[in-house]
């Protein structure tokens, strides 16, 4: 007999979940038998993923320590910056695991308003997030300058739609060109058609990929490995 491989687990789990999507849960879900097992799987597998994702955090943290630790040890180019990453990583880890600053001991919520972790979020992470987002304002400007050129019929259409909507969103464009209703129409009608064609196609792509995974055709990329 062939040794069970991870592929069997992949296939089994996927099939159970597909079946579960169409089966009425037998009351409390605690009953035994096939129906009970399927319902149990449906109810718990996604939360198990959540748990695995946390183990993955640990794996990621270990990987980060290794990568940057080695750069510092071997004095590679820019090792000072790796040291910055290591120090900030470890500092936040200590603050967070020991719940420093919040309610006494380990009782409190780590995101309590008075905890140091929250202070770090508010004064370091939150502004960094907001700033990265605001870089996008500059990038939409440079990308649209470069991309929206009437080189061919396709790019002319792209350019035209973008200009109409850009001008239709500001009072000046509305007063000068009455672009507001045209831009609304573009967003409501052809845009909807394009979105729907994309979504329907994606659904089919997902089905095909899932079938290939379940049949083990995506070897090596899936569970089967080497």
């Amino acid at each position: 007999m062939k040794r069970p491989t991870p592929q069997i687990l992949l296939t089994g789990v996927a099939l159970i979940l597909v079946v579960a999507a169409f089966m009425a849960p037998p009351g409390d879900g605690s009953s035994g038998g096939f129906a009970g097992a399927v319902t149990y799987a449906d109810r718990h597998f996604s939360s198990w993923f959540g748990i695995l994702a946390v183990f993955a955090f640990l794996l990621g943290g270990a990987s980060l320590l290794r990568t940057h630790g080695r750069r510092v040890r071997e004095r590679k180019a820019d090792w000072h910056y790796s040291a910055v990453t290591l120090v900030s990583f470890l500092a936040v880890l200590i603050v967070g695991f020991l719940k420093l600053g919040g309610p006494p001991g380990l009782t409190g919520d780590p995101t309590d308003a008075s905890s140091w972790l929250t202070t770090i979020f508010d004064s370091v992470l939150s502004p960094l997030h907001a700033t990265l987002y605001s870089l996008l304002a500059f990038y939409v400007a440079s990308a649209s300058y470069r991309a929206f050129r009437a080189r061919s019929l396709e790019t002319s259409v792209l350019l035209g739609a973008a200009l109409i909507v850009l001008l239709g969103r500001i009072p000046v464009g509305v007063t000068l060109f009455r672009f507001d209703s045209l831009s609304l129409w573009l967003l409501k009608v052809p845009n909807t058609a394009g979105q729907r064609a994309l979504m329907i196609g994606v659904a089919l792509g997902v089905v095909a990929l899932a079938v290939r995974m379940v049949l083990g055709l995506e070897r090596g990329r899936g569970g089967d490995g080497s």
Partner: protein
Amino acid sequence: MIHPLAVSHDFGVWVGALLTLMVFSFLYRDNPFYKFAEHVFVGVSAAYWMVIGFWTTLWPRVIVPLIPEASRIVSSDTPLPERDLSAVVPAVLGLMMLSRLVPRLSGLARWPTAFVLGTTAGYAVVRYVRSDFMHQIQATIGDGVLIPAAGGGWNVAESLAALVTLSGTIFGLIYFMNTRRGGTVTTPAARIGLLVLMVTFGASFGSAVMARISLLVGRLQELLGDWLGLL
């Protein structure tokens, strides 16, 4: 113009403002300040989400159910919860994932990966068929392409919209046909489909610009207002 008293005295505001300027400097070119902010960002964010994941998921859903005594570490006056072994399977899968860290055992990690891929595929199929395939087709068909007006006759604008939506969706789908002879866009129908997609992208892009500028304005308001007290 900058009044010394209006400038923020809050240490956190200063840290945030300096990091913001460091990131903005990247728009000119890469430089040591950006590198510093980038490496702080990586270290702090990786640790932050790890800590949150530990306290909100691993602790209450794995450690405490399996080892109720552990809850004493956090709080000594609450009664011990009942032991609940349903977390054993994910815990074992999680430990198998961590086995990557030990080269000799690393083959075990293929099992949790297979489990995750199986759940991903299993949940996705039905969800996509339902909401991205069936629901979208039904919505596109709607009430057909001739919409009656309230006071009798036909509502021309609505009918035109319905017709464009329906035919645009069909042409778009034809553009995506894979099995066809020759190059990329051969039939006129596929070409029309591509044009529909181009309108979609152009219009969405134009609409998104406002959102992006809003974020920049928000950031600058905090910088000029909260930090420098200018606004």
